[in-house]
């Protein structure tokens, strides 16, 4: 396994993203190539899960587009993922919150995690 990790470190660069986990609300800035032009698209939603490890790690973000749920899976090491901003820390008990898909309306809210460090500030 060590050989693989070494090789991954050498060949693929994983950017320094802030810590986030399932239940958090994030904004993912994603580079999109149209012909020769490159622009950045933002995708804001709730993280359902983080999956895998190392350069093969991916995370799933779910948002409601009008009435329709849209989920997107981003590889964390993808050169197209430009930036991840955590806007809200969610208080959830599970690493994979798939139950969140079935929730609609008022039930589809996630309690915000209050951390003492921010209160002190």
């Amino acid at each position, binding site marked *: *396994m060590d*050989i*693989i990790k070494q*090789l*991954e470190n050498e*060949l*693929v660069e994983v950017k320094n993203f802030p810590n986030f986990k399932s239940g958090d609300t994030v904004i993912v800035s994603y*580079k999109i*190539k149209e012909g020769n032009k490159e622009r950045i698209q933002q995708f804001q939603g709730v993280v359902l899960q983080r999956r895998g490890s*190392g*350069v*093969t790690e991916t995370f799933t973000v779910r948002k409601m587009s009008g009435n329709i749920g849209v989920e997107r899976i981003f*590889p964390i*090491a*993808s*050169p*197209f993922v430009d930036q991840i901003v955590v806007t809200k820390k969610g208080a959830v008990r599970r690493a994979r919150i798939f139950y969140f898909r079935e929730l609609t309306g008022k039930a589809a809210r996630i309690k915000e995690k209050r951390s003492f460090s921010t209160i002190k500030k």
Partner: protein
Amino acid sequence: MPGIIGRKVGMTSIYSAEGKATPCTVIEAGPCVVTQLKTQERDGYDAVQLGFGERKEVRTPNALKGHFKKANTTPKAKLVEFKGFEGLNLGDIVKVDIFEEGEFVGVVGTSKGKGFQGVVRRHNFGGVGQATHGQHNRLRAPGSIGACSYPARVFKGMRMAGQMGNKRVMTENLVVLKVLTDKNLIVVKGSVPGAKGSTVLIAK
């Protein structure tokens, strides 16, 4: 086909310049030592025997010790013959740099053993497809395996239940993505037969 002996390390992903993720297999290949040269005059064909991996001296029979001594090398764990090498001498070392990036190779390995499996798993038979209408215990049965008094036998090669996997398998036309000679590593696109740590042969 010239080739090299290696050990499957595992799989990972590599991102191309366009940002496309490519699944790939890392193989630790070589350095291999030429342990014997087969010639047309002596053996009736031309080939090169390569040795890979270390083997304990105490666990090596004397006959093999002599074989390795001829090539002036330590005992090797795996010996495989390859055709198509040119200009190699006894005791020479073959490294992964015989391959280039972008080249197509075939990889031979021993597939993971699945044990004794029925036809549904082993040959992708459909099974019966329904549980009622008199099926009782016939859900995954193969059905008819031939006609009756003519030919009065079962044809050879009839697909039936049996051992699945643990068999020599070659995956052809894999693209070489990276060759790291200093680390003796080669990265090929896609999957390769066998478990992690198993011996594989990479051939051009």
